[in-house]
């Protein structure tokens, strides 16, 4: 290595940009690589295909006679299964995938290591959210949705109207995003992995009960979204846009709170 004078240091030192996004791009690439550079890039889409499209095959092919006796018919049953079960399953997947994201890094010491670089804590949380949301949307939505659309169109004998199908997927994606944010926020605030996992799951599974308890108040929460998904997929108009707006607001508020609390934490 060639000798270097003291004065050279200033010119040779690389200078980072600073701001709330500082370090985002590098961390985003790293988070995404956890999907793209491992078996996840093909395992996850296949698993989601089986989980989301598999149940549809019961009314469509495997137990057609049983479902044909239902008043709603096999086509409606299959569509209902895909969207209702899909909204629930993808949200559970989001919680499972995201719950260890911050907690593990904090416990292992890699969070402190990364944050000893010019990395804003907000950028660290944002990179985890954006990368995992993107990866999960691609893995859990793209392939299963294309196959489901094809199967439903085949059953119907004509192409399904695209707008309601896409709108329902959009609502489902927003629901998934909320649980990603909720789990990430809990992970940033709470140090116990079990709590980070159980609180969002409890909210998810007790959704119907909470909707009953909250009555009109449920409109100011994301809890109604899973109910709206199959309704919109069937061509119905969104009864109220309030839960959509509220979900976006909850996501922003949770991220802001997580950023503030995580920003004050001693690592």
């Amino acid at each position: 290595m060639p000798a270097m004078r003291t004065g050279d240091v200033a010119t040779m030192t690389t200078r980072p940009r600073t701001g709330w996004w500082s370090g985002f791009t590098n961390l985003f690439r790293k988070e995404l690589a956890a999907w793209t550079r491992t078996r996840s890039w093909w395992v996850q889409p296949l698993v989601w295909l089986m989980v989301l499209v598999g149940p549809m095959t019961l009314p469509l092919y495997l137990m057609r006679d049983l479902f044909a006796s239902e008043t709603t018919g096999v086509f409606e049953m299959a569509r209902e299964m895909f969207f209702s079960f899909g909204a629930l399953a993808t949200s559970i997947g989001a919680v499972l995938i995201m719950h260890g994201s911050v907690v593990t890094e904090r416990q292992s010491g890699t969070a402190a290591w990364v944050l000893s670089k010019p990395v804003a804590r907000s950028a660290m949380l944002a990179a985890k959210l954006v990368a995992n949301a993107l990866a999960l949307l691609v893995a859990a939505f793209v392939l299963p949705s294309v196959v489901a659309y094809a199967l439903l169109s085949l059953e119907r004998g004509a192409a399904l109207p695209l707008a309601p199908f896409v709108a329902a997927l959009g609502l489902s994606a927003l629901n998934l995003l909320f649980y990603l944010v909720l789990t990430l926020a809990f992970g940033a605030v709470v140090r116990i992995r079990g709590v980070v996992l159980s609180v969002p799951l409890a909210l998810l599974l007790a959704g119907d009960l909470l909707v009953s308890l909250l009555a009109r108040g449920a409109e100011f929460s994301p809890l109604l979204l899973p109910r709206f998904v199959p309704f919109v997929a069937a061509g119905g108009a969104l009864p109220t846009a309030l839960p959509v707006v509220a979900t976006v607001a909850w996501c922003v508020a949770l991220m802001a709170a997580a950023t503030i609390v995580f920003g004050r934490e001693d690592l």
Partner: protein
Amino acid sequence: MDPMRRAPPSTPAAAIETKGLSKRYGETVALDGLDLEVPRNSIFGFLGPNGAGKSTTMKLLLGLAHPTGGAARVFGLDASRDSLAVRGRVGYLAQEPRFYDYMTARETLRFVLGFFEPLGARETRLRVDEALELVGLARIADRSIRGLSGGERQRLGIAQAWIHRPDLLILDEPAASLDPMGRADVLNILRRLRDRATVFFSTHILDDVQRVSDTVAILARGRRVAQAPIQELLTAKEAPTFVAEVRDVDDEARADIERLPWVRSVQVGASERGTTWRVTVTDVARAEADLLRRLLQDPAAVVVEFRRVAFELEDVFLDLVKEGSDAGHANR
């Protein structure tokens, strides 16, 4: 006005400057009003027993923890308010370095470099290769970190701290988990970096500090109990003393030596080979020139051994830490 809140000078003399820096965790005082000044381009040893507050200080400098009192500046930048800018100029090695296990050493260094200004593919490759070479990891650069030994991880820790050529290296126990060969390598690396950056490192291995540091600070119970150039610290604690192991020297010779104006005291004790004289002096140069000659003036005298007592950093460290702890207890 808080002296640390003044506008940063354009070229601050100190790489690190803390004033009354404090950190409490509930009732526990981790750091208690630390005043520290680390000169630029020095190798600064930061010593203290377990729990003295060394790692806490380093975390406060990097914004990984938040002070409960006082302030710290790094190159004139406020360590809390300008934390991102500070971290842009610092390379840090934690006490127990942790990395993403699925990455290789090379990928880890590329990842770290990615947090700094883009360099281009060729420059990035050169930097990574250079850092791997510096710490002797080139041979296993493409092995997963999962398979690296503790010592190899430590070396990788130094490489990742240095990869972006920081102005300041903060190293928490850089040689802790290394074997003697590894320790020697790390000390050599620190020496090689001396002209390129300021090195602020903590360690329990006092011999390492004595070998490479220009200046040391000693911390006890969250307080600084000493800061000085290492030679000053080693000589300031005790008056210069010479030890002579002699046989067949009479009392008159001892009285002659005690009468010398530059001799402070002579203590005599029995030893296996005769008698041991501990001669404390006020003028080292005169003692070095004359003392042995005076002893040998008696033709019957036999001098078996003659040397100046070199105080080891360990002696100084233990004394200062004890004093610091006693003072800490008295104040609480």
